[in-house]
Protein backbone atom coordinates (compact mmCIF):
# COMPACT_ATOMS: atom_id res chain seq x y z
CA UNK A 1 0.00 0.00 0.00
CA UNK A 2 1.46 3.33 -0.98
CA UNK A 3 1.17 6.05 1.56
CA UNK A 4 1.40 9.78 1.88
CA UNK A 5 4.74 11.49 1.65
CA UNK A 6 5.80 13.32 4.74
CA UNK A 7 8.03 16.35 4.98
CA UNK A 8 11.75 15.80 5.28
CA UNK A 9 12.65 13.24 7.90
CA UNK A 10 10.13 10.73 9.21
CA UNK A 11 10.31 10.05 12.91
CA UNK A 12 7.47 7.58 12.91
CA UNK A 13 6.10 5.43 10.12
CA UNK A 14 2.94 3.40 10.50
CA UNK A 15 2.26 0.76 7.86
CA UNK A 16 -1.08 -1.00 7.41
CA UNK A 17 -1.67 -1.17 11.16
CA UNK A 18 -4.55 -3.43 12.19
CA UNK A 19 -6.04 -4.29 15.55
CA UNK A 20 -8.91 -6.71 16.02
CA UNK A 21 -10.45 -7.26 19.42
CA UNK A 22 -12.06 -10.63 20.01
CA UNK A 23 -15.67 -10.65 21.15
CA UNK A 24 -15.99 -13.68 23.39
CA UNK A 25 -19.18 -15.47 24.21
CA UNK A 26 -20.84 -18.83 24.57
CA UNK A 27 -19.32 -21.64 26.56
CA UNK A 28 -15.52 -21.75 27.06
CA UNK A 29 -15.45 -18.09 25.87
CA UNK A 30 -15.01 -18.90 22.22
CA UNK A 31 -14.24 -15.99 19.95
CA UNK A 32 -17.61 -15.38 18.37
CA UNK A 33 -16.81 -12.11 16.62
CA UNK A 34 -14.14 -9.54 16.07
CA UNK A 35 -14.21 -5.80 16.41
CA UNK A 36 -12.12 -4.22 13.67
CA UNK A 37 -10.93 -1.30 15.77
CA UNK A 38 -8.05 -0.33 13.49
CA UNK A 39 -8.38 -1.60 9.94
CA UNK A 40 -5.28 -0.86 7.93
CA UNK A 41 -3.95 2.53 8.98
CA UNK A 42 -0.82 4.04 7.43
CA UNK A 43 0.79 7.41 7.98
CA UNK A 44 4.06 9.13 8.76
CA UNK A 45 4.99 11.81 11.22
CA UNK A 46 7.97 14.01 10.43
CA UNK A 47 10.40 15.14 13.11
CA UNK A 48 9.07 18.16 14.99
CA UNK A 49 5.69 17.85 13.34
CA UNK A 50 2.25 17.54 14.88
CA UNK A 51 -0.10 15.13 13.22
CA UNK A 52 -3.70 15.61 14.28
CA UNK A 53 -5.79 12.45 14.30
CA UNK A 54 -9.52 13.15 14.31
CA UNK A 55 -12.66 11.09 14.05
CA UNK A 56 -15.81 10.19 15.93
CA UNK A 57 -15.82 8.20 19.18
CA UNK A 58 -14.98 4.56 18.57
CA UNK A 59 -13.31 5.05 15.20
CA UNK A 60 -10.00 3.65 16.47
CA UNK A 61 -8.04 6.83 17.17
CA UNK A 62 -6.96 5.90 20.68
CA UNK A 63 -6.33 2.27 19.72
CA UNK A 64 -4.00 3.47 16.97
CA UNK A 65 -2.10 5.62 19.45
CA UNK A 66 -1.78 2.79 21.96
CA UNK A 67 -0.68 0.30 19.30
CA UNK A 68 2.14 2.66 18.33
CA UNK A 69 3.31 2.69 21.96
CA UNK A 70 2.80 -1.08 22.22
CA UNK A 71 0.42 -0.54 25.12
CA UNK A 72 -1.88 -2.66 22.99
CA UNK A 73 -0.35 -5.34 20.79
CA UNK A 74 -1.35 -4.71 17.16
CA UNK A 75 -2.81 -7.68 15.27
CA UNK A 76 -0.77 -6.94 12.16
CA UNK A 77 1.07 -4.15 10.43
CA UNK A 78 4.27 -2.37 11.27
CA UNK A 79 5.36 0.66 13.25
CA UNK A 80 8.76 2.10 12.49
CA UNK A 81 10.41 4.58 14.86
CA UNK A 82 13.68 6.15 13.74
CA UNK A 83 14.27 3.25 11.39
CA UNK A 84 13.57 0.53 13.98
CA UNK A 85 10.61 -1.79 13.77
CA UNK A 86 8.71 -1.20 17.02
CA UNK A 87 6.30 -4.08 16.44
CA UNK A 88 9.17 -6.62 16.55
CA UNK A 89 10.88 -5.20 19.63
CA UNK A 90 11.14 -7.14 22.84
CA UNK A 91 12.64 -6.80 26.31
CA UNK A 92 15.52 -4.35 26.51
CA UNK A 93 14.87 -2.73 23.15
CA UNK A 94 11.28 -2.00 24.07
CA UNK A 95 12.39 -0.67 27.44
CA UNK A 96 14.71 1.76 25.67
CA UNK A 97 11.91 2.78 23.33
CA UNK A 98 9.82 3.74 26.37
CA UNK A 99 12.20 6.66 26.85
CA UNK A 100 11.56 7.90 23.32
CA UNK A 101 7.79 7.63 23.17
CA UNK A 102 5.36 8.82 25.82
CA UNK A 103 1.66 9.38 26.20
CA UNK A 104 -0.59 12.02 27.73
CA UNK A 105 -4.06 10.86 28.67
CA UNK A 106 -7.51 12.28 28.28
CA UNK A 107 -8.83 12.03 31.82
CA UNK A 108 -6.60 13.94 34.24
CA UNK A 109 -8.50 12.36 37.14
CA UNK A 110 -7.82 8.76 36.12
CA UNK A 111 -4.28 9.22 34.89
CA UNK A 112 -2.62 10.01 38.24
CA UNK A 113 -2.32 7.42 41.00
CA UNK A 114 -4.37 8.90 43.89
CA UNK A 115 -2.13 7.31 46.53
CA UNK A 116 1.16 8.79 45.37
CA UNK A 117 2.47 12.30 45.87
CA UNK A 118 3.15 14.33 42.76
CA UNK A 119 6.89 14.08 43.36
CA UNK A 120 6.66 10.27 43.38
CA UNK A 121 4.47 10.23 40.28
CA UNK A 122 6.92 12.28 38.24
CA UNK A 123 9.95 10.71 39.88
CA UNK A 124 8.89 7.17 39.02
CA UNK A 125 10.06 7.56 35.42
CA UNK A 126 13.47 8.65 36.71
CA UNK A 127 13.67 5.62 38.99
CA UNK A 128 12.64 3.13 36.30
CA UNK A 129 15.18 4.40 33.79
CA UNK A 130 17.83 5.19 36.45
CA UNK A 131 18.02 8.82 35.38
CA UNK A 132 18.62 10.20 38.85
CA UNK A 133 21.63 8.75 40.70
CA UNK A 134 20.81 10.40 44.03
CA UNK A 135 17.76 11.50 45.97
CA UNK A 136 18.92 15.09 45.55
CA UNK A 137 19.27 14.76 41.78
CA UNK A 138 15.80 13.25 41.65
CA UNK A 139 14.25 16.13 43.58
CA UNK A 140 16.06 18.72 41.50
CA UNK A 141 14.83 17.14 38.30
CA UNK A 142 11.24 16.90 39.57
CA UNK A 143 11.32 20.57 40.55
CA UNK A 144 12.72 21.45 37.15
CA UNK A 145 9.96 19.46 35.41
CA UNK A 146 7.25 21.06 37.55
CA UNK A 147 8.53 24.50 36.64
CA UNK A 148 8.69 23.54 32.98
CA UNK A 149 4.97 22.80 32.96
CA UNK A 150 4.11 25.90 34.97
CA UNK A 151 3.66 24.44 38.46
CA UNK A 152 5.32 25.33 41.77
CA UNK A 153 8.22 23.32 43.26
CA UNK A 154 6.33 22.71 46.52
CA UNK A 155 3.55 21.02 44.58
CA UNK A 156 5.65 17.86 44.63
CA UNK A 157 4.63 17.20 48.23
CA UNK A 158 0.92 17.22 47.45
CA UNK A 159 -1.47 14.52 46.34
CA UNK A 160 -3.28 14.58 42.99
CA UNK A 161 -6.71 15.23 44.52
CA UNK A 162 -5.48 18.61 45.72
CA UNK A 163 -5.21 19.90 42.16
CA UNK A 164 -7.60 21.16 39.51
CA UNK A 165 -8.12 19.37 36.21
CA UNK A 166 -5.79 21.68 34.32
CA UNK A 167 -3.06 21.34 36.94
CA UNK A 168 -3.42 17.57 36.93
CA UNK A 169 -3.02 17.54 33.18
CA UNK A 170 0.19 19.55 33.65
CA UNK A 171 1.42 16.89 36.09
CA UNK A 172 0.67 14.24 33.47
CA UNK A 173 2.67 16.22 30.94
CA UNK A 174 5.58 16.57 33.38
CA UNK A 175 5.54 12.80 33.91
CA UNK A 176 5.74 12.21 30.16
CA UNK A 177 8.55 14.76 29.81
CA UNK A 178 10.63 13.19 32.58
CA UNK A 179 12.23 10.64 30.25
CA UNK A 180 12.97 13.28 27.57
CA UNK A 181 10.89 11.63 24.86
CA UNK A 182 11.01 12.44 21.16
CA UNK A 183 7.41 11.53 20.37
CA UNK A 184 4.39 12.13 22.58
CA UNK A 185 1.02 10.60 21.81
CA UNK A 186 -1.52 13.11 23.12
CA UNK A 187 -4.72 11.11 23.56
CA UNK A 188 -7.40 13.81 23.66
CA UNK A 189 -5.39 15.77 26.25
CA UNK A 190 -7.84 18.64 26.51
CA UNK A 191 -11.22 16.98 25.90
CA UNK A 192 -11.97 16.70 29.62
CA UNK A 193 -11.00 20.30 30.45
CA UNK A 194 -12.86 23.61 30.56
CA UNK A 195 -12.50 25.67 27.41
CA UNK A 196 -10.39 28.33 29.12
CA UNK A 197 -8.04 25.68 30.52
CA UNK A 198 -7.94 23.90 27.15
CA UNK A 199 -6.23 26.92 25.61
CA UNK A 200 -3.63 27.01 28.38
CA UNK A 201 -2.77 23.35 28.00
CA UNK A 202 -2.60 23.61 24.21
CA UNK A 203 -0.29 26.60 24.49
CA UNK A 204 1.86 24.72 26.98
CA UNK A 205 2.11 21.80 24.57
CA UNK A 206 3.14 24.16 21.78
CA UNK A 207 5.76 25.86 23.94
CA UNK A 208 7.18 22.50 24.96
CA UNK A 209 7.31 21.38 21.34
CA UNK A 210 9.38 24.42 20.50
CA UNK A 211 11.63 24.09 23.53
CA UNK A 212 12.38 20.37 23.29
CA UNK A 213 11.80 19.70 19.60
CA UNK A 214 8.97 17.30 20.36
CA UNK A 215 6.86 15.47 17.83
CA UNK A 216 3.18 14.97 18.60
CA UNK A 217 0.51 12.59 17.50
CA UNK A 218 -2.44 14.66 18.61
CA UNK A 219 -5.64 12.65 18.93
CA UNK A 220 -8.88 14.61 19.28
CA UNK A 221 -12.48 14.71 18.23
CA UNK A 222 -12.61 18.49 18.33
CA UNK A 223 -11.66 19.83 14.90
CA UNK A 224 -11.06 23.41 16.03
CA UNK A 225 -8.50 22.27 18.63
CA UNK A 226 -6.73 20.13 16.06
CA UNK A 227 -6.64 22.89 13.48
CA UNK A 228 -4.83 25.14 15.91
CA UNK A 229 -2.03 22.79 16.86
CA UNK A 230 -1.52 20.45 13.89
CA UNK A 231 0.87 20.66 11.00
CA UNK A 232 -1.07 17.97 9.19
CA UNK A 233 -4.37 16.29 9.98
CA UNK A 234 -5.53 12.73 9.38
CA UNK A 235 -9.25 11.97 9.47
CA UNK A 236 -10.33 8.49 10.56
CA UNK A 237 -13.60 6.73 9.96
CA UNK A 238 -14.34 3.21 11.24
CA UNK A 239 -10.72 2.18 11.65
CA UNK A 240 -9.42 3.63 8.40
CA UNK A 241 -7.76 6.90 7.46
CA UNK A 242 -9.98 8.59 4.88
CA UNK A 243 -7.99 11.77 4.33
CA UNK A 244 -4.61 13.26 5.22
CA UNK A 245 -3.59 16.78 4.35
CA UNK A 246 -1.73 19.78 5.69
CA UNK A 247 -3.92 21.42 8.30
CA UNK A 248 -4.83 24.58 6.36
CA UNK A 249 -5.43 22.67 3.16
CA UNK A 250 -7.74 20.18 4.85
CA UNK A 251 -9.86 22.87 6.41
CA UNK A 252 -10.04 25.08 3.32
CA UNK A 253 -10.39 22.36 0.81
CA UNK A 254 -11.70 19.07 2.19
CA UNK A 255 -11.99 16.34 -0.43
CA UNK A 256 -13.56 13.38 1.33
CA UNK A 257 -17.33 13.70 1.89
CA UNK A 258 -16.89 12.57 5.50
CA UNK A 259 -14.36 15.34 6.17
CA UNK A 260 -16.73 17.83 4.58
CA UNK A 261 -19.54 16.69 6.84
CA UNK A 262 -17.31 16.93 9.92
CA UNK A 263 -16.12 20.41 9.04
CA UNK A 264 -19.62 21.64 8.35
CA UNK A 265 -20.45 20.80 11.96
CA UNK A 266 -17.76 23.11 13.39
CA UNK A 267 -19.47 26.27 14.62
CA UNK A 268 -18.30 29.56 13.14
CA UNK A 269 -18.13 32.39 15.69
CA UNK A 270 -19.99 34.79 13.40
CA UNK A 271 -23.79 34.65 13.29
CA UNK A 272 -24.00 36.40 9.91
CA UNK A 273 -22.10 33.68 8.11
CA UNK A 274 -24.45 31.09 6.68
CA UNK A 275 -23.02 27.74 5.78
CA UNK A 276 -24.51 24.69 4.21
CA UNK A 277 -24.71 22.10 6.96
CA UNK A 278 -24.19 18.58 5.70
CA UNK A 279 -26.25 16.21 7.81
CA UNK A 280 -25.10 12.61 7.68
CA UNK A 281 -27.84 10.00 7.61
CA UNK A 282 -27.91 7.23 10.19
CA UNK A 283 -25.38 6.15 12.79
CA UNK A 284 -21.81 4.95 12.59
CA UNK A 285 -22.06 1.28 11.51
CA UNK A 286 -21.11 -1.47 13.93
CA UNK A 287 -17.33 -2.08 13.72
CA UNK A 288 -17.97 -5.80 14.28
CA UNK A 289 -19.46 -5.98 10.80
CA UNK A 290 -18.19 -2.90 8.97
CA UNK A 291 -19.75 -2.15 5.57
CA UNK A 292 -18.15 -3.76 2.53
CA UNK A 293 -16.07 -1.78 0.07
CA UNK A 294 -15.73 1.80 1.27
CA UNK A 295 -16.71 1.85 4.95
CA UNK A 296 -18.44 5.18 4.43
CA UNK A 297 -20.72 4.20 1.55
CA UNK A 298 -23.75 3.60 3.78
CA UNK A 299 -23.86 7.27 4.78
CA UNK A 300 -22.12 8.94 1.88
CA UNK A 301 -24.01 11.63 -0.05
CA UNK A 302 -22.10 10.91 -3.27
CA UNK A 303 -21.97 7.12 -3.05
CA UNK A 304 -22.47 5.06 -6.21
CA UNK A 305 -23.26 1.32 -6.42
CA UNK A 306 -19.68 0.16 -6.86
CA UNK A 307 -18.60 1.91 -3.62
CA UNK A 308 -20.00 -1.13 -1.81
CA UNK A 309 -17.66 -3.44 -3.73
CA UNK A 310 -14.33 -1.68 -4.15
CA UNK A 311 -12.18 -0.59 -1.22
CA UNK A 312 -10.74 2.87 -2.01
CA UNK A 313 -6.98 3.26 -1.63
CA UNK A 314 -5.42 6.39 -0.20
CA UNK A 315 -4.29 8.31 -3.28
CA UNK A 316 -2.52 11.62 -3.62
CA UNK A 317 -5.06 13.93 -5.15
CA UNK A 318 -2.90 17.02 -4.82
CA UNK A 319 0.68 17.24 -3.58
CA UNK A 320 0.57 16.28 0.09
CA UNK A 321 -3.21 15.88 0.11
CA UNK A 322 -4.26 12.25 0.29
CA UNK A 323 -7.81 11.00 0.13
CA UNK A 324 -9.42 7.60 0.00
CA UNK A 325 -12.51 8.06 -2.13
CA UNK A 326 -13.37 6.80 -5.62
CA UNK A 327 -15.28 9.84 -6.77
CA UNK A 328 -14.12 12.86 -4.85
CA UNK A 329 -11.04 14.97 -5.38
Amino acid at each position, binding site marked *: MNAPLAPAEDLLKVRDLRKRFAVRGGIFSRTVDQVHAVDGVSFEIGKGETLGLVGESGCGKSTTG*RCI*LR*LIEPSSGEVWFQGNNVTRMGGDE*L*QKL*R*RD*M*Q*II*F*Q*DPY*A*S*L*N*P*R*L*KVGAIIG*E*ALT*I*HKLAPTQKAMEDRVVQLLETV*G*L*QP*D*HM*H*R*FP*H*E*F*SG*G*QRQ*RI*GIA*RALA*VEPKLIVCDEPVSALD*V*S*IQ*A*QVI*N*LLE*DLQEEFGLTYLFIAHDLSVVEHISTRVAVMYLGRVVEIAPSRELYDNPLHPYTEALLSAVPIPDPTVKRKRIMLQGDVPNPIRPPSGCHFHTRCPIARPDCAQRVPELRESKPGHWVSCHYSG
Partner: protein
Amino acid sequence: MAGSTPVSLSADAPASPQLAVQPRKARSISPALETWRRFRRHTLAVTGAIVLLILVSGVLLGPYVWPVAINDIDFAAKLQGPSLAHPLGTDDLGQDLLARMMYGGRISLAVGFAAMLVALTVGVLVGSVAGMASGWLDAALMWLTDLFLALPTLPLLLLVMYLFRDSMKKVLGVEGGAFVLIVVVIGGLRWMPVARLVRAQFLSLREKEFVEAARALGASKVRQVVQHILPNALGPVIVVGTIDVAAAIIFESTLSFLGLGFPSDVPTWGSMLRDAKDYLDIAAHWALFPGGAIFLTVLAINFIGDGLRDAFDPRRVL
Protein backbone atom coordinates in the same frame (compact mmCIF):
# COMPACT_ATOMS: atom_id res chain seq x y z
CA MET B 1 -8.73 33.01 37.73
CA ALA B 2 -8.13 32.55 34.05
CA GLY B 3 -10.75 35.16 33.33
CA SER B 4 -11.16 36.57 29.88
CA THR B 5 -7.60 36.00 28.72
CA PRO B 6 -7.15 32.26 29.06
CA VAL B 7 -4.07 32.13 26.91
CA SER B 8 -1.18 32.80 29.23
CA LEU B 9 0.78 29.71 30.07
CA SER B 10 1.07 30.44 33.75
CA ALA B 11 -2.37 31.90 34.25
CA ASP B 12 -3.73 29.25 36.55
CA ALA B 13 -0.44 28.22 38.09
CA PRO B 14 0.51 31.25 40.21
CA ALA B 15 -3.06 31.72 41.34
CA SER B 16 -3.46 28.17 42.53
CA PRO B 17 -1.10 28.00 45.51
CA GLN B 18 -3.01 30.71 47.34
CA LEU B 19 -6.26 29.04 46.43
CA ALA B 20 -5.08 25.68 47.67
CA VAL B 21 -3.40 26.91 50.82
CA GLN B 22 -6.07 29.26 52.10
CA PRO B 23 -8.55 26.76 53.57
CA ARG B 24 -5.99 24.67 55.49
CA LYS B 25 -2.55 26.00 56.22
CA ALA B 26 0.28 24.41 54.31
CA ARG B 27 -0.01 20.77 55.35
CA SER B 28 -0.89 18.28 52.68
CA ILE B 29 -3.61 15.73 53.40
CA SER B 30 -2.70 12.18 52.47
CA PRO B 31 -5.37 9.66 51.41
CA ALA B 32 -4.78 7.74 54.66
CA LEU B 33 -5.31 10.85 56.76
CA GLU B 34 -8.42 11.67 54.78
CA THR B 35 -9.78 8.17 55.44
CA TRP B 36 -9.13 8.61 59.17
CA ARG B 37 -10.92 11.96 59.11
CA ARG B 38 -13.93 10.37 57.46
CA PHE B 39 -13.83 7.35 59.79
CA ARG B 40 -13.96 9.62 62.84
CA ARG B 41 -17.31 10.98 61.72
CA HIS B 42 -18.91 7.54 61.71
CA THR B 43 -20.34 7.43 65.23
CA LEU B 44 -21.11 3.71 65.33
CA ALA B 45 -17.70 2.79 63.98
CA VAL B 46 -15.94 4.97 66.53
CA THR B 47 -18.08 3.43 69.29
CA GLY B 48 -17.16 0.01 67.95
CA ALA B 49 -13.49 0.90 67.94
CA ILE B 50 -13.68 2.11 71.56
CA VAL B 51 -15.54 -1.02 72.69
CA LEU B 52 -13.01 -3.24 70.93
CA LEU B 53 -10.16 -1.27 72.45
CA ILE B 54 -11.64 -1.77 75.92
CA LEU B 55 -12.12 -5.49 75.31
CA VAL B 56 -8.60 -5.96 73.95
CA SER B 57 -6.91 -4.00 76.70
CA GLY B 58 -9.16 -5.79 79.21
CA VAL B 59 -7.98 -9.26 78.21
CA LEU B 60 -4.37 -8.12 77.83
CA LEU B 61 -3.98 -6.04 80.98
CA GLY B 62 -6.82 -7.45 83.08
CA PRO B 63 -4.88 -10.42 84.51
CA TYR B 64 -2.40 -7.99 86.12
CA VAL B 65 -5.23 -6.17 87.85
CA TRP B 66 -7.09 -9.36 88.77
CA PRO B 67 -4.36 -11.96 89.37
CA VAL B 68 -6.55 -14.97 90.10
CA ALA B 69 -5.59 -18.39 88.77
CA ILE B 70 -7.94 -19.77 86.12
CA ASN B 71 -7.81 -23.25 87.60
CA ASP B 72 -8.23 -22.41 91.26
CA ILE B 73 -10.89 -24.95 92.24
CA ASP B 74 -13.16 -24.11 95.15
CA PHE B 75 -16.19 -26.40 95.46
CA ALA B 76 -17.53 -24.33 98.33
CA ALA B 77 -18.17 -21.48 95.91
CA LYS B 78 -19.40 -23.34 92.83
CA LEU B 79 -22.00 -21.85 90.45
CA GLN B 80 -22.17 -18.59 92.36
CA GLY B 81 -23.49 -15.43 90.74
CA PRO B 82 -21.50 -12.22 90.56
CA SER B 83 -20.14 -11.05 93.90
CA LEU B 84 -17.25 -9.01 95.23
CA ALA B 85 -15.07 -12.14 95.56
CA HIS B 86 -15.94 -13.26 92.03
CA PRO B 87 -17.14 -10.24 89.95
CA LEU B 88 -18.48 -12.47 87.17
CA GLY B 89 -19.40 -15.43 89.38
CA THR B 90 -17.99 -18.96 89.32
CA ASP B 91 -18.47 -22.15 87.30
CA ASP B 92 -19.33 -25.69 88.40
CA LEU B 93 -15.85 -26.21 89.87
CA GLY B 94 -15.88 -22.89 91.66
CA GLN B 95 -13.30 -21.40 89.27
CA ASP B 96 -13.30 -17.62 88.92
CA LEU B 97 -15.14 -16.65 85.71
CA LEU B 98 -13.53 -13.22 85.34
CA ALA B 99 -10.07 -14.75 85.24
CA ARG B 100 -11.23 -17.41 82.78
CA MET B 101 -12.98 -14.80 80.62
CA MET B 102 -9.77 -12.78 80.34
CA TYR B 103 -7.67 -15.82 79.55
CA GLY B 104 -10.22 -17.13 77.05
CA GLY B 105 -10.58 -13.70 75.47
CA ARG B 106 -6.88 -13.65 74.67
CA ILE B 107 -7.22 -16.92 72.82
CA SER B 108 -10.45 -16.00 71.02
CA LEU B 109 -9.16 -12.61 69.86
CA ALA B 110 -5.76 -14.01 68.90
CA VAL B 111 -7.46 -16.72 66.84
CA GLY B 112 -9.69 -14.11 65.20
CA PHE B 113 -6.89 -11.78 64.15
CA ALA B 114 -4.45 -14.54 63.19
CA ALA B 115 -7.06 -16.32 61.06
CA MET B 116 -7.94 -13.01 59.39
CA LEU B 117 -4.26 -12.45 58.56
CA VAL B 118 -3.99 -15.94 57.07
CA ALA B 119 -7.16 -15.45 55.01
CA LEU B 120 -6.03 -12.02 53.77
CA THR B 121 -2.51 -13.17 52.90
CA VAL B 122 -3.67 -16.21 50.93
CA GLY B 123 -6.57 -14.30 49.37
CA VAL B 124 -4.47 -11.30 48.30
CA LEU B 125 -1.77 -13.59 46.86
CA VAL B 126 -4.18 -15.77 44.89
CA GLY B 127 -6.28 -12.79 43.82
CA SER B 128 -3.35 -10.67 42.63
CA VAL B 129 -1.76 -13.50 40.67
CA ALA B 130 -5.09 -14.36 39.06
CA GLY B 131 -5.85 -10.70 38.38
CA MET B 132 -2.54 -9.98 36.71
CA ALA B 133 -2.14 -13.26 34.80
CA SER B 134 -5.07 -13.48 32.47
CA GLY B 135 -5.49 -16.75 30.62
CA TRP B 136 -5.11 -20.29 31.90
CA LEU B 137 -3.47 -19.38 35.23
CA ASP B 138 -6.33 -17.02 36.05
CA ALA B 139 -8.88 -19.69 35.09
CA ALA B 140 -7.10 -22.38 37.12
CA LEU B 141 -6.85 -20.19 40.23
CA MET B 142 -10.51 -19.21 40.00
CA TRP B 143 -11.50 -22.87 39.66
CA LEU B 144 -9.49 -23.59 42.78
CA THR B 145 -11.31 -20.75 44.53
CA ASP B 146 -14.69 -22.08 43.46
CA LEU B 147 -13.65 -25.54 44.59
CA PHE B 148 -12.81 -24.27 48.06
CA LEU B 149 -16.07 -22.31 48.18
CA ALA B 150 -17.98 -25.48 47.39
CA LEU B 151 -16.41 -27.44 50.25
CA PRO B 152 -18.79 -27.99 53.17
CA THR B 153 -16.94 -26.19 55.92
CA LEU B 154 -17.94 -27.85 59.13
CA PRO B 155 -17.54 -31.54 58.15
CA LEU B 156 -14.19 -30.71 56.59
CA LEU B 157 -13.11 -28.91 59.72
CA LEU B 158 -14.06 -31.86 61.89
CA LEU B 159 -12.12 -34.20 59.61
CA VAL B 160 -9.00 -32.02 59.62
CA MET B 161 -9.11 -31.63 63.40
CA TYR B 162 -9.41 -35.40 63.92
CA LEU B 163 -6.64 -36.18 61.44
CA PHE B 164 -4.01 -33.66 62.47
CA ARG B 165 -4.68 -32.79 66.10
CA ASP B 166 -2.40 -35.43 67.53
CA SER B 167 0.54 -34.85 65.22
CA MET B 168 0.33 -31.08 65.75
CA LYS B 169 0.17 -31.63 69.49
CA LYS B 170 3.48 -33.50 69.36
CA VAL B 171 5.23 -30.71 67.47
CA LEU B 172 3.87 -27.54 69.06
CA GLY B 173 2.46 -28.65 72.38
CA VAL B 174 -1.20 -28.90 73.35
CA GLU B 175 -2.25 -25.26 73.13
CA GLY B 176 0.15 -24.19 70.41
CA GLY B 177 -0.82 -27.12 68.22
CA ALA B 178 -4.51 -26.41 68.59
CA PHE B 179 -3.97 -22.71 67.94
CA VAL B 180 -2.00 -23.20 64.74
CA LEU B 181 -4.39 -25.85 63.48
CA ILE B 182 -7.49 -23.74 64.16
CA VAL B 183 -5.98 -20.61 62.63
CA VAL B 184 -4.81 -22.43 59.51
CA VAL B 185 -8.11 -24.22 59.06
CA ILE B 186 -10.27 -21.12 59.55
CA GLY B 187 -7.96 -18.94 57.45
CA GLY B 188 -7.68 -21.68 54.83
CA LEU B 189 -11.44 -21.78 54.46
CA ARG B 190 -12.07 -18.04 54.40
CA TRP B 191 -9.60 -16.70 51.82
CA MET B 192 -11.86 -17.27 48.81
CA PRO B 193 -14.03 -14.14 49.05
CA VAL B 194 -10.85 -12.09 49.52
CA ALA B 195 -9.26 -13.66 46.44
CA ARG B 196 -12.33 -12.94 44.33
CA LEU B 197 -12.50 -9.38 45.57
CA VAL B 198 -8.82 -8.72 44.95
CA ARG B 199 -9.00 -10.25 41.48
CA ALA B 200 -11.99 -8.10 40.56
CA GLN B 201 -10.19 -4.99 41.84
CA PHE B 202 -7.11 -5.90 39.82
CA LEU B 203 -9.09 -6.48 36.64
CA SER B 204 -10.55 -3.00 36.91
CA LEU B 205 -7.45 -1.19 38.18
CA ARG B 206 -4.98 -2.62 35.69
CA GLU B 207 -6.90 -0.93 32.86
CA LYS B 208 -6.84 2.44 34.62
CA GLU B 209 -4.89 5.17 32.90
CA PHE B 210 -2.39 5.68 35.71
CA VAL B 211 -1.39 2.03 35.42
CA GLU B 212 -1.20 2.40 31.65
CA ALA B 213 1.03 5.42 32.19
CA ALA B 214 3.32 3.28 34.34
CA ARG B 215 3.38 0.65 31.59
CA ALA B 216 4.23 3.33 29.05
CA LEU B 217 7.13 4.39 31.28
CA GLY B 218 8.38 0.80 31.27
CA ALA B 219 7.39 -0.22 34.81
CA SER B 220 7.75 -3.95 35.45
CA LYS B 221 4.72 -6.02 36.39
CA VAL B 222 5.89 -6.23 40.00
CA ARG B 223 6.28 -2.45 40.09
CA GLN B 224 2.83 -1.91 38.60
CA VAL B 225 1.31 -4.15 41.27
CA VAL B 226 3.25 -2.92 44.29
CA GLN B 227 3.22 0.80 43.48
CA HIS B 228 -0.03 1.32 41.66
CA ILE B 229 -2.54 -1.51 41.76
CA LEU B 230 -2.30 -3.05 45.23
CA PRO B 231 -2.41 0.20 47.26
CA ASN B 232 -5.59 1.17 45.42
CA ALA B 233 -7.14 -2.28 45.85
CA LEU B 234 -6.62 -2.57 49.61
CA GLY B 235 -9.55 -0.46 50.86
CA PRO B 236 -12.27 -3.08 50.34
CA VAL B 237 -9.85 -5.83 51.41
CA ILE B 238 -9.35 -4.21 54.80
CA VAL B 239 -13.11 -4.00 55.20
CA VAL B 240 -13.52 -7.71 54.43
CA GLY B 241 -10.64 -8.35 56.84
CA THR B 242 -12.48 -6.78 59.77
CA ILE B 243 -15.54 -8.88 59.06
CA ASP B 244 -13.30 -11.95 58.82
CA VAL B 245 -12.05 -11.34 62.36
CA ALA B 246 -15.60 -11.49 63.62
CA ALA B 247 -16.35 -14.60 61.59
CA ALA B 248 -13.20 -16.35 62.85
CA ILE B 249 -14.09 -15.63 66.48
CA ILE B 250 -17.51 -17.17 65.95
CA PHE B 251 -15.96 -20.10 64.13
CA GLU B 252 -13.57 -20.79 66.96
CA SER B 253 -16.51 -20.64 69.37
CA THR B 254 -18.35 -23.17 67.21
CA LEU B 255 -15.36 -25.48 67.20
CA SER B 256 -14.87 -25.19 70.95
CA PHE B 257 -18.57 -25.67 71.49
CA LEU B 258 -18.33 -28.95 69.56
CA GLY B 259 -15.30 -29.93 71.61
CA LEU B 260 -12.93 -29.78 68.66
CA GLY B 261 -11.06 -26.61 69.48
CA PHE B 262 -8.67 -26.26 72.33
CA PRO B 263 -8.33 -28.98 75.02
CA SER B 264 -11.29 -28.92 77.42
CA ASP B 265 -9.33 -27.49 80.35
CA VAL B 266 -8.27 -24.41 78.34
CA PRO B 267 -10.97 -21.77 78.54
CA THR B 268 -12.00 -19.86 75.46
CA TRP B 269 -15.20 -17.87 75.09
CA GLY B 270 -16.65 -20.65 72.95
CA SER B 271 -15.71 -23.51 75.26
CA MET B 272 -17.05 -21.63 78.29
CA LEU B 273 -20.39 -21.39 76.51
CA ARG B 274 -20.28 -25.13 75.86
CA ASP B 275 -19.58 -25.95 79.51
CA ALA B 276 -22.25 -23.50 80.68
CA LYS B 277 -25.06 -24.85 78.55
CA ASP B 278 -25.98 -27.62 81.05
CA TYR B 279 -26.46 -25.09 83.85
CA LEU B 280 -28.44 -22.44 82.00
CA ASP B 281 -31.38 -22.67 84.39
CA ILE B 282 -29.44 -22.41 87.64
CA ALA B 283 -26.35 -20.36 86.59
CA ALA B 284 -27.31 -18.23 83.59
CA HIS B 285 -24.47 -15.77 84.28
CA TRP B 286 -21.93 -18.45 83.33
CA ALA B 287 -23.19 -18.46 79.71
CA LEU B 288 -24.21 -14.82 79.66
CA PHE B 289 -20.74 -13.32 80.11
CA PRO B 290 -18.79 -15.22 77.41
CA GLY B 291 -21.81 -15.02 75.09
CA GLY B 292 -22.06 -11.29 75.67
CA ALA B 293 -18.34 -10.87 75.09
CA ILE B 294 -18.52 -12.66 71.74
CA PHE B 295 -21.58 -10.65 70.78
CA LEU B 296 -19.95 -7.33 71.71
CA THR B 297 -16.67 -8.11 69.96
CA VAL B 298 -18.29 -9.25 66.72
CA LEU B 299 -20.71 -6.34 66.69
CA ALA B 300 -17.93 -3.83 67.38
CA ILE B 301 -15.73 -5.25 64.63
CA ASN B 302 -18.59 -5.28 62.16
CA PHE B 303 -19.30 -1.62 62.88
CA ILE B 304 -15.62 -0.81 62.41
CA GLY B 305 -15.78 -2.59 59.06
CA ASP B 306 -18.86 -0.59 58.17
CA GLY B 307 -17.15 2.67 59.05
CA LEU B 308 -14.04 1.75 57.10
CA ARG B 309 -16.11 0.86 54.06
CA ASP B 310 -17.81 4.26 54.12
CA ALA B 311 -14.54 6.05 54.79
CA PHE B 312 -12.85 4.37 51.84
CA ASP B 313 -15.74 5.11 49.48
CA PRO B 314 -15.11 8.54 48.00
CA ARG B 315 -18.64 8.80 46.58
CA ARG B 316 -20.07 8.87 50.07
CA VAL B 317 -20.26 12.30 51.62
CA LEU B 318 -19.28 12.16 55.28
